[in-house]
């Protein structure tokens, strides 16, 4: 009986904690949206921080990211082509490449890449700001951290994931053509027709929306996780661990929901 009561209590506590985290995230996003719409937020300094954050998140990693995309895309395309040839389904290879790589795998891997690189850094920085009382110092000075600390990171996260995923998708489309037709231009018409058939307005809009949600997840969740850190230095790694688990969970949920909406 005691075991049953303890189990129910534990499940209840987990649900309440989950709801509290969800509410905290929602409240933070609402505050960010209000700051985004506030005219006073948009001065030269905020714009400069946004540009700097985009540089750190997207531009600085370009060479490594593009190499990673090239290798992954080339491998997946080769697997798809070989399998399609083995089953006599070569005609569907280009469609398969676009559906697997461009619509699903590359945006997902881009979000994971940004989450591991920038999300963890954001989580650590905000947790340290909280533990070191830097946020209290800003509060004492009546300077809200939203316009120059949090909002630029959110905006840069969304822009970076959308831009890097778009770049990765373009590269995969190009690689797909080269792998199927080589440098021969004869397949260009068929290939572009296949692309336009798959990528209609609804699918492209959905892809952009999914990437934007990925961008929000990899920045908003680490920020809120950092803000929830207890004021003890040894809790910073725990905060990053919890934050990154939440990011991973959110990315999975977005991907699964997007797949379900598309194919079920």
């Amino acid at each position, binding site marked *: 009986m005691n075991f049953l009561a303890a189990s129910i209590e534990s499940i209840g506590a987990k649900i309440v904690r989950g709801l509290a985290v969800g509410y905290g995230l929602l409240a933070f996003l609402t505050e960010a949206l209000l700051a985004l719409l506030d005219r006073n937020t948009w001065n*030269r300094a905020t714009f400069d921080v946004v540009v700097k954050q985009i540089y750190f998140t997207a531009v600085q990693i370009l060479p490594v990211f593009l190499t990673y995309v090239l290798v992954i895309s080339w491998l997946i395309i080769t697997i798809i082509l070989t399998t399609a040839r083995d089953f006599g389904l070569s005609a569907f290879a280009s469609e398969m490449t676009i559906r697997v790589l461009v619509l699903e795998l590359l945006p997902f891997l881009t979000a994971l890449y940004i989450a591991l690189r920038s999300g963890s850094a954001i989580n650590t920085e905000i947790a340290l700001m909280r533990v070191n009382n830097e946020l209290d110092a800003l509060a004492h*000075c009546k*300077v809200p951290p939203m316009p120059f600390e949090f909002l630029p990171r959110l905006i840069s996260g969304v822009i970076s994931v959308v831009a890097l995923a778009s770049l990765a998708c373009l590269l995969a489309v190009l690689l797909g053509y080269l792998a199927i037709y080589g440098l021969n231009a004869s397949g260009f018409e068929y290939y572009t027709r296949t692309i336009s058939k798959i990528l209609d307005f609804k699918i492209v809009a959905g892809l952009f929306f999914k990437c934007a949600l990925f961008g929000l997840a990899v920045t908003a969740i680490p920020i809120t996780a950092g803000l929830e850190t207890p004021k003890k230095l040894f809790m910073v790694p725990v905060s990053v661990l919890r934050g990154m688990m939440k990011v991973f969970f959110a990315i999975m949920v977005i991907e699964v929901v997007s797949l379900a909406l598309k194919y079920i």
Partner: protein
Amino acid sequence: MAAVAELGDDVARVGFDLPLRANLSALDNIALIPLYQRHYGAAEASQQAQALLTLLGHADIASLRDPDMTPSQRFVTQLARALILKRPRLVIDRPGATLYDVPYPRFIRQLADQANTIGTWEIFDFSWNQALYSE
């Protein structure tokens, strides 16, 4: 000492528990206040911050970040940040905790003379440090 942290909104406080933003320069830490509290332009805010550092005799520390500063440079930046708030009372909380590289009563007196501000400066310190202030 806990009471110091609960002083009202008319008090600008300098203390070890109100650190600088670690990844911003001294100038940016001070310029944040005119920029985001009073909505000045970036150039004007930086100009005000630089003028204040110059007034305190530390114009050269503008580009330094917190980890690269000496304790006295860090204190001057915190003081400039408190002064730019333009609150009627300035409270320096346990200066010995921040200023461990200079004889601090004399250093603070010197800064107060240079700053030439309107309003009162108050120092909250441990009673056993009282003798330092009579030197």
